[in-house]
């Protein structure tokens, strides 16, 4: 067993666990943060995506020991009801979630992508950014639209208010 320090969604946690336990299992089992899901267990589907020091990563292939001392943001950290992030509101507005099991991972990937850009992205850009996230229900069209909608919301928020 090893004791690790994690800052998750702004709160610091000290967790005692086997060092080879995945970050995903620590989040789900030790912290009860179950937005991040395991679907493939090998970093291919993106259902477990979290931000580690602002970079999107598959938490199922990150060991707890590797995450020691890092800052983690999960989907719960992007926003919780009723205080939703623009990306979450856009997913609701555009009907971009169906069964919803892949949604938190996609929200986190999209959040990381939008954090790094300052324009309304083209479809191909979004496809590349979300290339590591699989969804079996939606066919992606509405997810892509939701990311664009969130980007335009973000940019309109940045614009000065016209008097």
């Amino acid at each position, binding site marked *: 067993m090893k004791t690790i320090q994690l800052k998750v969604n702004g709160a610091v946690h000290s967790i005692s666990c086997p060092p080879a336990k995945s970050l995903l299992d620590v989040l789900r089992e030790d912290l009860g943060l179950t937005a991040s899901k395991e679907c493939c267990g090998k970093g291919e589907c993106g259902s477990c995506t979290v931000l580690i020091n602002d970079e999107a990563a598959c938490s199922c292939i990150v060991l707890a020991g590797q995450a020691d001392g890092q800052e983690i943001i999960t989907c719960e950290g992007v926003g919780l*009801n009723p205080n939703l992030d623009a990306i979450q509101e856009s*997913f609701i507005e555009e*009907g971009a979630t*169906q*069964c919803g*099991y892949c949604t*938190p991972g996609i929200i986190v990937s999209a959040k990381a992508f939008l954090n790094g850009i300052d324009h309304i992205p083209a479809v191909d850009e979004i496809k590349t950014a979300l290339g590591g996230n699989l969804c079996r229900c*939606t066919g992606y069209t509405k997810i892509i639209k939701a990311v664009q909608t969130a980007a335009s919301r973000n940019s309109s928020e940045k614009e000065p208010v016209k008097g």
Partner: protein
Amino acid sequence: MTYNNANPDSFKWVGKRVKRIDAPEKVTGELKYMTDYQFDNMVWGKVLRAEYPHAKINKIDTEGAQKLPGVICVLTHKDIPGFNGFGIVVPDQPVLCSKVVRCTGDAVALVAAETLEIAEQALSLIKVDYEPLEVVADVEFAMSSSAPQLHPDGNIHSHVAIKNGDTKKAFQVADIIVENTFYSPRQMHAFIETEGGWGVMDEQGLITIRCPGQYAYRDRMQIARSLAYNPERIRVISSPIGGAFGGKDEITVQIYLALLAMHTNGRPVKIHYSREESVIAGMKRHPFKVHMKTAAKRDGTLLANEVRAMGDTGAYASLGGAVIALAIEHSCGPYKIPNVDLEGFCIYTNNGIAGAFRGFGVNQVCMGIETHMDMIAEKLGIDPIELRKKNVYHQGEVSSVGHIVKSSVGTFRTLETAEKCDLWKNREKYKAEASEPWKKRGVSLATSFHGIGMGIGLPDYGAASIELLPDGKFLVGVGCEEIGGGNSTVYAQVAAEILNCDISNIQVVQGDTSRTLDGGTVTASRSTYTGGRAVATAAPNMVKMLTETAGEMLNLPLSKIEIETNHLSGGGEKITYQSIYQYLYENRRTTRVEGHFYLPKEKEEIEGSGGAPHHLYGYLTHVVLVEVDTLTGETDVLRVVSIPDAGKVMNRKALKAKQRAEL
């Protein structure tokens, strides 16, 4: 009463663009799926799979595994108190194999342990003495007399046949005959949430199974049958589901969880398949071999169709018989062909198990008939849409399977729409725009149809409850699970519409044998229609209860009670839902109503068809632009125009989402 009596123009919720009621919890990840629950005193369950696709079991030795520290129990077929089998139609799949294994997905033993690692190690310590047997991997070999018999009644699980007219004569007089064999492969649902869940038995012996499924009451029946346990003492919670597409229609891990829960001293047991295990043991789409021979006159009139389809159901039947029956019912497309000779076989092999999967056999035959329509059009020099329009049946006409189609038929209109769409009109332009010299583009279309509901001979009812809660909200309960398609929102829309309240006043509970009535499966495109109609039957009962109570409270006749938005009124006084609850509660009266609905059925079954015809069919045409790399064969679908005959649209937002999903 002012509530709007079925005038769609005045509807506030039904048919509008309504946001999904479950979306806020889904976009934050707050929603708990069955596999998301965590319990402190939990144990892990694992399943030992067969080592061979076909082998005799001589001995199962669990001693080594039992002795491993941290192992709580090791179970084999000997530990099954009741019937060692499951299967929606024929329970031919052993819960835990005893004498023989028939596919590598077969389960042989179960382990519960303190950690997942210990459970996995315990599996490796179970010694099974196998004697490999000859493997049946091909449907035609399976049907031959030289193949080993996989089940007591042989390798043919089911056979359906529909014959009309005289195909032999029609083939003699036909101007053109096309004949081909179509193969379609096994396909995996690949839902993002793999099979899994929780089982727990409390001190009173009540078993609770939390496991995503497509029909909680039937799952409960199958669990009870294997446990020889009173189903009333088993609670199954099956909603929400992280994707299923038919793949969670059959039992997945529910019986394993229940068996293990009986041996863990009240500790909750969790099984959650890895993706690999889901691939090995999970349901698949039936691989089909379809031989089809279609005849037409020079003017394009279809004369005859002969179909022989074989579906590989793998080691066990599950819904294979029904899949093949539905395939045969749809094997002539939405056309009127006077002479048909159609037969289908559902065949056992030692391949992976096949069962329900969106489309349910229709996809596999649609490919055949629609390819033939294009080939006939090309050979006769007729426009492919014209050829289809010429041969489609209309409402009131006789279908190829020989029944008068009484419900609405949208094929012709979807074809007309296809004809007018940009992609079809300008197809030559689009075809000329290949992205590379070695790539080619093509534009084509296909039309299809699909039976709604269960067909003849199977129960097809919806049931819903509506309960007025202390806070003045309404709890709508429907058995059909939220599978991702958005039926929860539809139920809320229907209730809000009839109760004349805001949708935020409606809560929906689904898929819980303790909280919802038995309303059948979430399959067969039935849950919006059947469950929605059940809600629409329950809601007027709630309206009646509200008005009668308000009348009593105000001491006014019913004619003086008004149902206003979000409350009632009478004699100038406002009556809140909350005050009605309070009144009913104080008088110790129920605040709950029910509604029931039977899906309309055809009266007579087509002999030998296994459930045809359906009373209702949905119709759909697709126009598609693809680009094929002539060097690698890689095919890109570049554009799809989807033209559904959707009937009455309940939620415009959900329709768009669903339509994309179905592509």
